[in-house]
């Protein structure tokens, strides 16, 4: 091996697992965006789990708790106005839609290796992102009473 080849080989960057700082400096092609958002959406639902359970509990327990559940979004709760809670729910709607649809894509890729390619990854990621954002907008309009 020549001297220059050896030094070039040494300079080649070595990529191990990513850390927090590289998250910002990375390029985000569509496939990695869909995948990254899958993680983000999962983490959001993890941290908001107590709120989700609060909603589940109050919405099913009784007529009175159901009214309390509704009032949180119409009147407000814990000193925060209703629209703030609606925004939290909108975040959860986006997270669950993205996690669901991107999850379908991952399941498909796990079971259909013959379809997996760079193009397939990019195209299906685009479908996931477009579908998720469209459905989120439709449900946001419903949530804020536009129809």
């Amino acid at each position, binding site marked *: 091996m020549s001297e220059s080849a050896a030094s070039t080989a040494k300079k080649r960057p070595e990529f191990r697992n*990513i850390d*927090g700082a590289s998250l910002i400096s990375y390029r985000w092609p569509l496939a990695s965006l869909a995948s990254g958002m899958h993680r983000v959406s999962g983490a959001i639902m993890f941290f908001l789990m*107590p709120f989700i359970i609060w909603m589940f509990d109050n919405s099913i327990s009784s007529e009175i708790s159901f009214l309390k559940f509704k009032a949180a979004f119409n009147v407000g709760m814990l000193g925060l106005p209703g629209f703030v809670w609606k925004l939290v729910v909108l975040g959860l709607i986006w997270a669950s839609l993205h996690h669901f649809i991107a999850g379908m894509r991952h399941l498909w890729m796990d079971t259909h290796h013959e379809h997996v390619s760079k193009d397939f990854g990019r195209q299906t990621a685009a479908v996931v992102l477009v579908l998720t954002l469209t459905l989120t907008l439709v449900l946001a309009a419903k949530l804020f009473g536009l129809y």
Partner: protein
Amino acid sequence: MSVNYGSHRTVVGAHYGMRDWLAQRVTAVLMALFTVLVLAQLIFTKGPIGYELWAGIFSPQWMKSLTFLVLLSMLFHVWVGMRNIFQDYVKPYAVRFVMHVFAIAWLVACTGGAIEALWRL
């Protein structure tokens, strides 16, 4: 540092293998089917969704059992997912350990709360 992937991977008893990977996918399918089942009952309803309809979805015994199963699926699914996230981004073992403990406590507490709410109905 030596190579720790592919055929050179150091095999340790930390569940890096097939079991959790598969369990995460099986639980995902279960939760997805459950979601469709619940959403279908809401979408094909005319008019506003009131308490009777919403609580009625969860009140039959078989639905409670199914929801219980889905809650347990969620517990395991989220545990695998959060553990993956912590393993990827949290490098110091002590911090990672504390976060793993936190995730387990958080998930067990949340699942318990959800089951309690379900059985109160």
